[in-house]
């Protein structure tokens, strides 16, 4: 007998890029039937979705959890609650913790902590170099055995091209996915915003958007040399897109992502030195924002993520240049991305292709579809319901969201992980 039957739902299928009205049956934590008509099975629990959207749960790649070292900013328990509230069923954590997750032992520690405390699935990235210092590569083989699904130094760029090249070559031999941050590090040193009129007006040190293209160009050349499997964490500028497109057309094993804040905000949102809008890389021009949205819609950019980066009040209540970078995003990823849907720039299946299907495919995670045999990781949401965001109601321990007081649309009615409501 079926455990749960979701009926009368607007089914979002990112694999087929379709939306249909129908039902989903779930048994033993897996999807056992997808129905768009005909007889429905009997179930222990029947959920009438009332026409709301039912989609594969979001797989958020690149989430910062403060364990170890900064548990006061975010723990696995609070991150899990925030994810569940935001319709995220799997989080893929970053290695830029304090201390860095760069050894099998630290990875085992965080994996155990995640299993104990998080209500959603957690997978982990490990650092690419020891201490994320760009000097010596980590034990990529042992870390793979310990469960790492990708390797990344976060926003630290490996400056030494020879070391980057060797690391990619070694990762290639193990078929390990490397996640890179594309910034020409000397050009972007000390920058707080994107250079241009806004930076000039505010007297803030800026970085040219060209630094991103330079970083991408170097890494693409290294992929041609090494054949490594590579994912760009965030592409945020129009000028980087042609290079990315060429690299894909030339058959390199490259994919790209973008954070939700670069899709929904621009450099002028910083306004009067609002530090909650300080992110890395900095917010870009409106032209860049629109170009990047088009690239996600066309599939050139594969993945949308939240770049969830919890920061406490003390790290943000500082002059702009000294304030910490980053914004929380687990709970606002879905409503913020729905802005693109409501603006007519993307369809719901396109959004979930970028937030569920593609991350699952690229990072080798089971899920991201509503097909039979897929895990019953699901989100039920109303894409239209309006609300005003109050940052103090967020489940995250840190409240540093740029959307405080923003009018948003899209509320989560329920999140299920392996058929269990969380």
């Amino acid at each position, binding site marked *: 007998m079926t455990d749960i039957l979701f009926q009368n739902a607007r089914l979002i299928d990112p694999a087929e890029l379709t939306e249909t009205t129908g039902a989903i049956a779930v048994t033993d934590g897996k999807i056992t039937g997808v129905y768009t008509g005909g007889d429905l099975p009997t179930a222990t629990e029947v959920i009438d979705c009332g026409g709301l959207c039912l989609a594969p749960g979001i797989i958020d790649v690149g989430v910062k959890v403060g364990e170890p070292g900064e548990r006061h900013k975010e723990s696995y328990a609070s991150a899990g609650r925030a994810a569940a509230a935001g319709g995220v069923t799997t989080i893929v954590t970053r290695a830029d913790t304090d201390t860095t997750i760069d050894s099998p032992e630290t990875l085992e520690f965080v994996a155990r902590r995640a299993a104990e405390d998080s209500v959603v699935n957690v997978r982990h990235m490990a650092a690419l170099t020891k201490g994320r210092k760009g000097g010596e590569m980590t034990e990529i083989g042992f870390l793979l055995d310990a469960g790492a699904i990708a390797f990344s130094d976060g926003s630290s760029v490996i400056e030494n091209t020879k070391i980057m090249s060797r690391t990619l070559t070694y990762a290639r031999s193990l078929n390990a996915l490397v996640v890179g941050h594309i910034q020409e590090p000397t050009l972007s040193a000390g920058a707080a915003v994107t*250079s*241009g009129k806004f930076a000039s007006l*505010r*007297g803030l040190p800026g970085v*040219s958007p060209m630094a991103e293209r330079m970083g991408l160009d170097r890494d693409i050349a290294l992929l041609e040399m090494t054949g490594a499997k590579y994912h760009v964490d965030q592409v945020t500028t129009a000028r980087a897109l042609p290079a990315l497109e060429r690299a894909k057309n030339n058959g390199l094993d490259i994919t790209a992502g973008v954070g939700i804040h670069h899709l929904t905000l621009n450099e002028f949102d910083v306004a009067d030195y609002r530090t909650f809008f300080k992110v890395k890389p900095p917010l870009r021009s409106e032209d860049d924002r629109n170009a990047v949205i088009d690239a996600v819609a066309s599939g050139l950019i594969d993945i949308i993520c939240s770049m969830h980066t919890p920061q406490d009040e003390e790290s943000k*209540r500082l*002059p702009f240049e000294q304030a910490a970078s980053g914004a929380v995003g687990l709970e606002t990823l879905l409503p913020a991305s729905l802005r693109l849907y409501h603006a007519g720039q993307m369809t719901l299946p396109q959004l979930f292709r970028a937030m569920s299907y593609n991350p699952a495919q690229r990072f080798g995670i089971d899920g991201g579809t509503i097909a039979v045999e897929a895990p019953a990781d699901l989100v039920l949401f109303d894409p239209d319901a309006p609300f005003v965001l109050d940052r103090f109601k967020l489940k995250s321990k840190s409240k540093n969201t740029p959307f405080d007081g923003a009018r948003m649309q899209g509320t989560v009615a329920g999140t299920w992980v392996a058929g269990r409501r969380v």
Partner: protein
Amino acid sequence: MTFNAAHLLGIEHLHPTEITTLLDLADHYAEQNRKGIQSKDVLAGMTQVNMFFENSTRTQSSFELAGKRLGADVMNMSMATSSVKKGETLIDTALTLNAMHPDILVVRHGSAGAVSLLSQKVNCAVLNAGDGRHEHPTQALLDALTIRRAKGRLHRLSIAICGDIAHSRVARSNIMLLGKMENRVRLIAPPTLMPSEVSELGVEVYDDMREGLKDVDVVMMLRLQKERMDGGFIPSEREYFHRYGLDAEKLSYAKDDAIVMHPGPMNRGVEIDGSIADDINRSVIQTQVEMGVAVRMAAMDLLARNLRERRAAGQVVTV
């Protein structure tokens, strides 16, 4: 009178009529200062605290003198040796100070936006004495007053600002003020010292000094900081003086009655030839210093009036 601001944080948010109001009052104080007339009642009973997170001699003493001439109790806090060194945050410093009930707070800080951040946490009048590369409003106001007195007007003038524009808060405040008052502003600098996309701020951009100086009414020179002279931004001090230093030959491209200004302290032989700086027919550099005191008196007077009004209306909660 039109001047409703609670703080003087920058030129950006001032209206042209507010600028005129302030300059008119400053003119009055400039005359009184020359005659030696005291106005000790204006800020009598008020406490002015100068908080300079960056070292300054000229600006700090100008503010100190302005406050004393208006009868305020002036206290200088040298932040370089204070609890900031012990790790106190800017906001905690502000809250601590606020609990001592100052009326006027004059702040200089090395980070853009820091003075604005501080002003949100205190309930007295805050004057920005320079925040990072962002703004230095009293400098722009004293420059404006100097120009208005020398030229008889503060509109439809052609004004060249020359030198390290990129790192200059003086330049930013001046670009905004002179633009608001409907002047033509030209920026002259090597491209490495020019902010990006600055032409979008409504100025004309030149990297050739002679071309830029052609027929201008005012030449405003900026200081080139020592640490930027050594090959990072320009090849050398002597090449800079050759191409961008103001000498008699380059000045001859400006109008015959063009005045020469400099916010000080000057590097003679780097950005300005000593003989030009000392030429009493062209240089108004000493007048700038004199107007500095008058402008700061006017600014503190206006802000104190607004503070008293807001306190009387119960809009300022005394902690």
